[in-house]
């Protein structure tokens, strides 16, 4: 008897909510980014679990391709996000999001 | 006779049959066989340290016309044991303001990636730890954990020199990983499989004849990944006082030491697998498969000798030269090599034809590179800016002295 699909989905949902709490409640901008990465990973687990349990029987690989695209997008977003954080740090000498709430310097 | 010729595989089968004969269930037989395999691979890795430490010291010493270590046993061959005893008896120092847990975590995970690589290296027709069908990708992915261990080591030491060294290390390792992966890709295109055993089986012609440029680039990048001279900025004693390892003493330093030599051995076997034909040797392996591990080991020793030769010969590269060498020279070159490989694979389906066309493509690539360099790199006597930088101040004339040894007119 295999691991049922709902177990994977529950773990992915828990990971998503932990990532959501991290993204919403942390003070440091880099910690917010780490929460976002956790959310993207939970989405990947979902995609691959559905691929394995539903799509693989029909011979299609769309789950894996979609997961690769999500990893690519996450990499691009992490690179640009961290570049933004470094640029902001260079100007304002802080990465605290409470201090970054005004557009004016 | 068959038992002797195919000794290792037959031995494994005989032991498994023995255990099944004792009444053990099949899952226990498999478990014991796996554990024995893991122990053997670990011992092979550590034996590499014992063999290559004296080899490095003696070979580099002979190249520099000095005797090298010659006190421990005749010819100084047990120097690795002497090093081990020295490191075991040293005091373990932890810097006060550092993060203690991180300081202790780094030596724990630095030797793991180097030893994990041994799980997917082929030692013979049936002798491989685990024949993953993404073997090469596994090796590249595990190499990135080594970078992580170095970051933790540099951060946990609470020392500015460690941090500078860590930045340089990560820059260098990430920059030299890219041409390495591109050369591996060219090999994977030719072999049509990512499993290491499949790559060895597919090499009817060894790949260093088919694509020598890729072999050379891979060797350079593998040496940079293993922090060997001439690209060893981080453990340069004259530069950064041993870099990220500066706060480690005793057994923790020994872990870094072991990791470096094990990764040297693993890299050499990897080069032998990818480019030199692995366990194949002009058909000898078909006659006597028992000799296959010896063939692999012999090729690995040859590659290690080449790496030591590089170390004894070339001076160290400056850091910005190192980075521009990788990004501006190796990356475009390996990308063009990959494109040529893809093109050649489409042009013909005959294996010998593909090999010949790829060799021709590589020769054209080298010729084009030399031509481009002749045009764009300015010669010293044609570039006024360079002349100003390297110009030597004119030496003042020495006034003549007369017979009494005094200068005229003074």
């Amino acid at each position, binding site marked *: 008897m*295999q*691991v049922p699909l*709902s177990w*994977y989905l*529950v*773990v992915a*949902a828990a*990971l*998503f*909510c932990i*990532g*959501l*709490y991290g993204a*919403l*409640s*942390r*003070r*440091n901008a*880099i*910690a917010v980014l*780490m*929460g976002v*990465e*956790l959310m993207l*990973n939970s989405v990947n687990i979902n995609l*691959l679990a559905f*691929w*394995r*349990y*539903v799509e*693989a*029987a029909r*011979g299609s*690989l769309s789950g*894996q*391709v979609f997961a*690769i695209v999500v*990893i690519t997008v996450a*990499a*691009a977003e992490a690179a*640009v996000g*961290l*570049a933004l954080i*470094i*640029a902001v*740090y260079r100007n304002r000498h*802080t*990465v605290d*999001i409470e201090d970054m709430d005004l557009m004016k310097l | 006779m068959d038992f002797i010729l195919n000794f290792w595989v037959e031995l494994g089968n005989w032991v498994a049959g023995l255990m099944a004969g004792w009444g053990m269930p099949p899952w226990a037989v498999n478990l014991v066989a796996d554990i024995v395999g893991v122990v053997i691979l670990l011992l092979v890795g550590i034996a590499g340290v014992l063999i290559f430490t004296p080899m490095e010291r003696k070979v580099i010493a002979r190249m520099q016309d000095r005797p090298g270590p010659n006190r421990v046993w005749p010819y100084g061959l047990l120097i690795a044991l002497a090093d081990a005893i020295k490191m075991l008896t040293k005091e373990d120092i932890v810097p006060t303001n550092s*993060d203690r847990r991180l300081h202790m975590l780094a030596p724990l995970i630095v030797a793991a990636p180097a030893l994990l690589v041994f799980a997917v290296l082929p030692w013979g027709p049936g002798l491989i730890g685990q024949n993953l069908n*993404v073997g090469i*990708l596994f090796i590249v992915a595990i190499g*990135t*954990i080594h*970078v992580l261990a170095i*970051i*933790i080591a540099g951060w946990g030491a609470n020392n500015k020199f460690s941090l500078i060294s860590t930045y340089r290390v*990560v820059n260098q390792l*990430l920059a030299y990983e890219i041409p390495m992966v591109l050369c591996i890709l060219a090999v994977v295109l030719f072999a049509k499989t*990512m499993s290491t055993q499949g790559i060895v089986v597919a090499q009817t012609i060894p790949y260093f004849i088919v694509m020598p440029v890729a072999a050379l680039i891979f060797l350079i990048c593998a040496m940079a990944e293993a922090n060997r001279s001439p690209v060893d900025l981080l453990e340069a004693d004259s530069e950064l006082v041993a870099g990220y390892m500066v706060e480690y003493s005793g057994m923790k330093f020994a872990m870094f030491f072991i990791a470096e030599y094990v990764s040297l051995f693993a890299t050499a076997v990897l080069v032998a697998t990818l480019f030199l034909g692995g366990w194949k040797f002009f058909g000898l392996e078909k006659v006597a498969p028992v000799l296959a591990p010896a063939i692999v080991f012999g090729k690995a020793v040859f590659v290690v000798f080449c790496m030591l030769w590089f170390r004894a010969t070339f001076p160290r590269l400056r850091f910005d030269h190192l980075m521009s060498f990788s990004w501006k020279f190796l990356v475009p070159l390996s990308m063009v090599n990959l494109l040529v490989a893809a093109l050649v694979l489409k042009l013909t389906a005959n294996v010998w034809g593909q090999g010949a066309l790829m060799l021709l493509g590589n020769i054209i690539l080298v010729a084009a590179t030399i031509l481009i360099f002749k045009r764009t790199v300015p010669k010293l006597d044609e570039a006024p800016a360079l002349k100003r930088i390297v110009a030597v101040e004119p030496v003042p004339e020495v006034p003549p002295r007369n017979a009494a040894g005094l200068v005229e007119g003074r």
Partner: protein
Amino acid sequence: MTVSHVVFIILSAVTLIGALGVVLGRNLFRAALFLILSFVGIAGFYILLEAEFLAMVQLLVYVGAIAILIIFAIMLSRRLMSPEYNARNEQWLIALASAAALCVLLVFILLQVNWPTELSVVPPNTIEQLGIALVSPDQFVLVFEVSSVLLLVALVGAVIIARER
């Protein structure tokens, strides 16, 4: 309770403990290390789901590139004086409540549905099939090309934004 059940429970413990370490810790460097632990646990999940290529790509891209990038950003943006006095911002209580409520809601819905699963044997040459799928005109070549353009744009953009003036 077969072996795969036990392995699943161990992997989910590793992943969720790593995730909790990310969001609850105060020391940012340790949070990054817990994030790496979480990524390794997720790579284990992918192997359990018989997508080995994706597991290696996860290790290579997430652990080898993104995590190291995050650690570099932590090292470069650290003021040498004070640690974070308070790691949580003003709205942490509402964030906790809403995340917990969302989790309960999702788990409740997920356990109710009767998922239509057909578990079959995955053919052994998925890597070849994946390669063909990514470049064949009637499958996913457009996705592949657009994501490569996306990576190029991100690369150029990150270099320009983070450049020293």
